[in-house]
């Protein structure tokens, strides 16, 4: 599904974060939490390749899906163009793609661990989980208070927040793995919990290992440089543990981006 999606709005959250609302009913209708779209900004040769972006929100009008939004952080040419996009511009979106998060069933709890722009897939996941009445907590770490976004939105949804910032300007100072580890220690083994994580890979590795150490399952959404998003180029591979021990490279665009935390051979 490749759509020349019209920009409905472009909200700047900070000097480098923005939320881009795109008209794409067909993608909106099919998108599941954790899936992504391959985005081509502009019809020029730079940037040449598409870039993967999680579906942040599914936009609805009188209940029916009309589009999706992207939460983008400026780091290079594509994200600059997304940041500068104007209402009415068109952005080419291919998707939804990839393996989504698998929601848990009550009474299991859900803990979502987000690092920076890794928040993106958790808005739709939270909606799905809360709709099923699942106890949901968001562990959310960023560089500073000004980069913790949509806190009220998650709270209104009934999501419990656990915040950290690297500079201590909001929530606990340090990385998000601190409060997560405390909670894991505190929680009785009898009470089941699924840990979802998205963010920089070292964070994902830490979370996955921590979850495993406490006997908890985890699902992590990995970020690999993707050339095609469809399984065609083999650029996006991640090493998976195998029975024979030696790692096996799987394409994170089609086998992922969501993996079981204990599947991945973390470097």
């Amino acid at each position, binding site marked *: 599904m490749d759509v020349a999606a019209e920009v409905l709005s472009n909200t700047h959250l900070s000097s480098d974060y923005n939320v881009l609302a795109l008209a794409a009913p067909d993608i909106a209708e099919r998108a599941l939490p954790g899936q992504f779209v391959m985005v081509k900004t502009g019809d020029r*040769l730079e940037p*040449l*390749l*598409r870039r993967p972006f999680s579906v942040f929100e599914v936009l609805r009008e009188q209940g029916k899906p009309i589009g999706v939004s992207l939460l983008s952080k400026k780091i290079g040419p594509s994200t600059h163009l997304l940041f500068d996009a104007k209402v009415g511009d068109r952005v080419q979106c291919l998707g939804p793609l990839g393996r989504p998060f698998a929601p848990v069933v009550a009474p299991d709890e859900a803990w979502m661990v987000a690092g920076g722009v890794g928040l993106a897939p958790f808005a739709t996941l939270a909606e799905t989980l809360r709709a099923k009445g699942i106890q949901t907590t968001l562990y959310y770490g960023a560089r500073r208070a000004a980069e913790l976004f949509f806190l009220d939105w998650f709270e209104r949804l009934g999501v419990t927040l656990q915040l950290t910032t690297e500079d201590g300007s909001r929530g606990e100072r340090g990385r998000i793995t601190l409060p997560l580890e405390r909670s894991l220690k505190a929680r009785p083994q009898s009470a089941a919990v699924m840990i979802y994580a998205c963010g920089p890979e070292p964070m994902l590795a830490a979370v996955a290992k921590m979850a495993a150490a406490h006997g908890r399952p985890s699902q992590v959404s990995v970020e690999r*440089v993707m*050339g095609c998003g469809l399984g*065609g*180029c*083999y650029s996006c591979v991640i090493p998976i543990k195998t029975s024979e021990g030696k790692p096996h490279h799987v394409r994170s665009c089609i086998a992922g981006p969501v993996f079981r935390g204990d599947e991945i051979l973390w470097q």
Partner: protein
Amino acid sequence: MNLSVRIGSLTLKNPLIAASGCFGYGTEYSDVIDIATLGGVAVKGLFLAEREGHPPPRIVETPAGMLNAIGLQGIGVHRFIAEKMPELRARGAVVIVNICGTTLQEYVELARILSDVEGVHALELNISCPNIKEGGITFGCSVHGTADVVSAVRKVTKLPVIPKLTPNVTDITSIARAAEEAGADAVSLVNTFLAMVIDVETRRPRLSNIVGGLSGPAIRPIAVRMVYECRQTIRIPVIGMGGIATATDVLEFMIAGATAVQVGTANFVDPLIWPKLLSGVERYMERHGLATLGDLTGSLDTSAREKEWISS
């Protein structure tokens, strides 16, 4: 309109072929487009055995191009035949298998195995992968190496044999001629240009393999020149590629001398590019009153250019 082209004994319904390594095993794209509408599908380079390839990062974008060092990760020829060919047959794809060997024997072995497989239409000999030492590049960079591989494979198969040439040579025409004399049915060119990108902040290469292969529009003018040179030198068909992203680019390669073309990088940018390229070529043929693509291939007019009234 008849857009069919002949590559040796093989007739393609149109000149558009998915470039090897840029279209997976073909099956990855069968939900996106009808792969039977392509002239052909050159599947990802196959060795006899499975390979894990290079560690990531494996690609990086460059000005109007991209660098890749996948390292020919793949499932090996046996799993390919067992797991992919049935679907490719069922979907009616014209399958061109891109084979890679570390030794001459391996190419021969692969050719033998694939010759008996229903639905395999041609063999593209990858003697030009720049980013693995054993990837046949040692053959592809020399006239003798090329001749050896081609004639050895030629002996064991009736399938069209299409050596894929590397552009990283002083004189591609001598390699092309060697391939022709050794019995190749066609040559395909170009594979990628050996290149590298450095992250100046970390002072590390952007690819784990340090170097990789450059593809995309950036290389098109060099690739077009090489197709033109080969067209002047050999009689067998040339399958041209390197940076094709629009119908105009397809036409440029064909006018330079290509009988068919392959599209790689641009398929990543737009997996739905195929019908767009095809209709663009059709419109051009109509506008220029051309009946067959044969009238287009090699039709470059090198006589002195007269001036046009360009700005009126």
